[in-house]
């Protein structure tokens, strides 16, 4: 944790500049948060696709097994 330090005096124009920059930083941080949420959503979509992929492969395996069985019955 940062302890209390000695005060400093900032010129008004610089002070305003710093305020503006902090405001821009805040807006950018909000934007980055949104981008991260979008990234999370894409990641979830990708995971869902992979799960459905696995499901399809399982179904193919089942169908192949039943085809194999059908062939062996002959």
């Amino acid at each position: 944790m940062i302890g209390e330090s000695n005060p400093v005096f900032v010129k008004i124009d610089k002070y305003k500049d710093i305020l503006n920059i902090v405001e821009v930083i805040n807006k950018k941080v909000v934007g980055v948060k949104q981008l991260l949420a979008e990234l999370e959503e894409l990641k979830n979509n990708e995971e869902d696709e992979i799960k459905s992929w696995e499901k399809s492969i399982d179904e193919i395996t089942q169908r192949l097994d039943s085809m194999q069985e059908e062939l062996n019955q002959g």
Partner: protein
Amino acid sequence: MKMNKRIEGEQEFFMRITNPNAFRKNLLETSKMTLTIIKQTQKIKQLRELKQELMSRISREVKELKLLMEKADDLMPAYNKAELKKYFPEQATPKEQPAARTDFKPKSHAPVSEMDKLSKAIDDIQRKLQSL
């Protein structure tokens, strides 16, 4: 001589498929699913491209944030201890001298990677924080 001509004396055998409709259905369903998987692969590829694009955007934004923070830091007044003593004689208490650095490493001429640069920047900020 034809290649597919049956060898003399060879007998033809037939296998019985009891439920050909079910067999065909399974075969068609399997083909359909295979195509679905190819489609899913394409979709995953697209999603990964979007993710890559998004990650590049985040990286750019974070770099801009870094620049803005550096700019704000530059705007903060720099003062040294002598100046501080002049203005705040009662507050300018002497601080401990920083210990001599023992982590000195000779400069290497190996190419510096982006990761090394970032690690160095983090170390610099950590040193600044410790000195506050």
